[in-house]
């Protein structure tokens, strides 16, 4: 994470995020999901380390 967060901070973030996503995760589910969510955030951090110009666009030519 760009700004390191404790597990407690992350869990406090996951609860409202899951509510917005329509899942409303229980405390037990948040506990179970935390390690995986941290893995996703670590992957996102590594992706963010790639220097892209402001002109970069997310369109991938999938139909060649």
């Amino acid at each position, binding site marked *: 994470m760009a700004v390191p967060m404790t597990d407690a901070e992350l869990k406090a973030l996951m609860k409202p995020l899951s509510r917005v996503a*329509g899942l409303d995760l229980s405390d037990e589910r948040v506990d179970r999901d935390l390690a995986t969510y941290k893995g996703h955030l670590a992957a996102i951090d590594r992706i963010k380390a*790639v220097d892209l110009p402001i002109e970069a666009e997310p369109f991938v030519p999938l139909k060649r």
Partner: protein
Amino acid sequence: MNVSRRDFLAGSLAIPLAQPPSQSYGEPRRSSREQPSSGGGAFRPANQKPDDLAFISLTDAAALIKARRLSPVELTQALLARIDRLDGKVGAFITVTREEALRSARAAEGEIAAGRYRGPLHGIPFGVKDTHYTTGVRTTANTPVLTDFVPAFDATVVARLRRAGAVLVGKTSLPEFSFGSAGGGGAFPDAHNPWNLARTPGGSSSGSAAALAAGLLTVATGGDTSGSIRNPATFCGVVGMKPTYGRVSRHGIVVISWSLDHVGPMSRTVADNATLLNVIAGPDPADDTSSDRAVPDYTRALRRGVRGLRVGIPKPPQFDGYHRDVMRAFEESLAVFRKLGAIVNEVDLPPTSGVIDDVQQIVRIAEAASYHEPFLTTKADRYATTTTVRRDLESGSLITAVQYLRAQKVRARFVKDLTDVFRTLDVFLTPGMPAPAGEPADVKQPFRRMFNVCGFPALVLPNGFSTTPVGLPIGLQIAAKPFAEETIYAAAQAFESATEWHTRRPNF
């Protein structure tokens, strides 16, 4: 080095197709589109034993069926009997469509006897991963969420195979919702590797690969989002092709990730794989991402050979952590290609390749979470408690749009950069997997997910067996630029013809 088309073709003509192991059937090997014309009439037995039929190639079976020397019913019955006898050990099938298979086989036999031969898939038994919709036959994706799901239509791939006269024998095993490799549990028991029943067959197209290796199917299809055709094909010693994104319709396939999912052919030989792709590839109005590009006859590429072919390989540091036997087999494979006249050079991969598995992880799980939203909000408690699927999806639901789009921007950069790399290459070779089935591997670059991210085609085929532990298959991956499946088949056939790895069978 630039090679003219004339040089390339001239070199290729010197390399014959491998003689099939079943020459004793008395039929010379021909391309699937060079079969003698069939008139009609009754089937004349060629005296095959059931065990011969277990491992008969599609190419050989098609020639015999067309000549009415092998009955589709006899072939189907032989495989069903073998499934009865052996699938308790292998666990390759979730559903065996016995009655439907026999009905289809009888119909094929009748049509062929009446002189209405449809082509090389007519009367050929096949299996599909249990993510493929099949009219009236449950499609479970090995999850309790879908155990009662009976589709009202066929996946386009299934419909095309049925239209070609092929005989659906069953729906093959996978991990729950195609997440991960075999061994994680789900609604049904895991598949096992026929080369060592205590080991994983890989995943997620586990059952298709295991069934082919065990001689329970003639051909099969699988799905590949993170390497799910190539991983089990490598572990089970069979041939698996992840075609170019858009080459094969995804319509009617249970989704993991729309932009990463591919459907492709699995087989025991390269020629069979090309024949199967001929049938399942092509535009589909029901899949907006399917390509309108015309489908060539892939079997015509099989005789091209590799003389002058520009082969790229990764630089040595990319192989840190790879199993010793895998690297030995890879080096020996490169020697085969050099001997056949290919030009092998090390190439640099784009810097973005270092994070491409991270990109794949975020794109995959964000798209999967979106697909699963209705399940997660209405039947979350039905996901298997023995797997991590629900956990993965719930955490994926928390990824923001900005984070997903950041991954897509890096993905777009990678595709552009890799396209540039392929301007100087015809094919790119890597090991199929970093280690044999079930062996630990801590590697920087597994070379699998990158081809889902960019959508370029990639095939694996057997290129050796491990010595430590003894007797597990090892695979070679051949990738190429978009829609260059013909180049891949040419290279794969040349390698297969020069080696005998594909002729070995497991003893279980």
